[in-house]
């Protein structure tokens, strides 16, 4: 008893938080994997997974078990330890953005002053993992994919930051909670529609989703940076991708859609949480919708779009915001 009382209560809280977050990460990947396949089916006028469980609802857990049970095939001449580390690097930082995401008024681990920036920083870690994976695989397809991923992510982080900056100018804070509080009267999607659209497009590109899925463009590069990965290593990349998608959508929902705010629902304290998740999953639905509608852009077009359209537009948007904030 003495020992237990000597342990600071923070530690328990942290352990519980980590367990909950990791559990959520896997659950989110499962749900999103299922929804993506189901939606893909319906967009293509077929049913999607139907065999395992009611309407295929157990398909993703079963797939997960299969992937975990599979042999991890390591090709010859991979760059040793880096090959093994890359999926771990992809996976490990995914828990950190959850620290600052405000799911509901009281449901936030810590409200950092630089919350939005912190989330973006953690998301950029993925680039390192993708590049390491591509580099260490000793495969030309993987290498091309990795190079594309780096160039793409660097180009698209700039407009994201500039859009966040526009919000920061209006709210005087990057704290996630502060930004939500600032949207008391009106959501920022109405005040800053251009920033919203640009930020949303960029977050699709940032998470390497179609139509910007160039690092894993399957018709060109078979599977891109994860060509040589199998089993659990591959699924770690997939889980990381879905989690980054979720985090990106959380950020967009917080910055532009008023976070947990919404018409009161008859669920007491839970209603704000429900609103938050509804907004996030709606954004994820739009991302999935994009993927099953459009062809893939070419690499130089992708860069052109970032440097010729998104970055100038976000700069102009920032300038206008700054002037208006100063004047009003």
């Amino acid at each position, binding site marked *: 008893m003495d020992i237990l009382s000597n342990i600071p209560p923070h530690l328990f809280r942290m352990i519980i938080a980590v367990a909950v977050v990791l559990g959520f990460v896997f659950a989110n990947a499962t749900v999103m994997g299922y929804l993506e396949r189901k*939606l893909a*089916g*319906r*967009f*293509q*006028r*077929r*049913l999607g997974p*139907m065999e395992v469980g009611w309407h295929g609802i157990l398909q993703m857990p079963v797939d997960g078990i299969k992937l975990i049970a599979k042999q991890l095939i390591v090709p010859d001449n991979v760059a040793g330890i880096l090959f093994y580390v890359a999926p771990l690097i992809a996976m490990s930082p995914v828990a950190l953005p959850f620290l600052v995401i405000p799911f509901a008024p009281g449901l936030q681990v810590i409200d950092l002053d630089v919350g939005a920036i912190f989330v973006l920083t953690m998301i950029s870690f993925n680039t390192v993992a993708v590049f390491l994976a591509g580099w260490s695989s000793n495969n030309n397809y993987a290498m091309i994919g990795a190079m594309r991923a780096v160039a793409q992510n660097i180009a698209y982080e700039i407009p994201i930051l500039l859009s966040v900056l526009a919000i920061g100018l209006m709210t005087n804070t990057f704290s996630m909670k502060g930004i939500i509080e600032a949207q008391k009267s009106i959501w920022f999607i109405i005040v800053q529609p251009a920033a919203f659209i640009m930020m949303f497009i960029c977050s699709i590109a940032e998470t390497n989703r179609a139509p910007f899925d160039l690092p894993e463009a399957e018709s060109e590069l078979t599977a891109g940076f994860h060509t040589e990965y199998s089993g659990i290593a591959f699924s770690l990349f997939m889980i990381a991708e879905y989690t980054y998608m979720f985090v990106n959508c959380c950020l967009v929902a917080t910055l532009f859609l008023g976070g947990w705010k919404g018409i009161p629902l008859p669920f007491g304290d839970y209603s704000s949480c429900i609103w938050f998740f509804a907004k996030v999953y709606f954004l994820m639905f739009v991302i999935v*919708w994009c993927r*099953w*509608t*459009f062809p893939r852009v070419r690499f130089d077009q992708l860069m052109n779009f970032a440097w*010729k*359209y998104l970055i100038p537009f976000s700069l102009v948007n920032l300038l206008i915001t700054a002037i208006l904030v100063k004047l009003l």
Partner: protein
Amino acid sequence: MKKYFSDLVTGAKSLVAGFIVTFKALLSPVVTVQYPREKLPVGKGYRGHPILILEDDTGRPKCIACGSCMRLCPSQCITVQGEKKEGDKRKYPTVFQVDFTRCSLCGTCSEVCPVAALEYSDVYGLAGFTREEFQYDLLADLPGLVETGFKPVSAD
């Protein structure tokens, strides 16, 4: 400069049009069937593997074991032997084998048959683990026919 902005507008419009197409598809009913659970009716003209047609009154094959099909089969996958037993008016087949691994379902055998004794089943999706499973003896029961309750068209 004008093109720079007009590209943006037309591009955005076209993307929205694409969104509408797929969203309509999302709301419209599915067009596929869950294949092993539900099956679509097979087209009337579909050609499965060859089968022998029986005489209505005697229940014996119409085949007279003339061997036309065997000779003219492009894949040479048919083996026919026949003999005229005591008390029979004509030759009946004693061996009628089809090597289905080689059959190209071209329709020649039933086309050349002088007594129209060959037909095609509507069995599809046949699968097996060995080649031997596809050495069909048309005089014996054939796989798939019993389950589907197939009757040759000209037998009715």
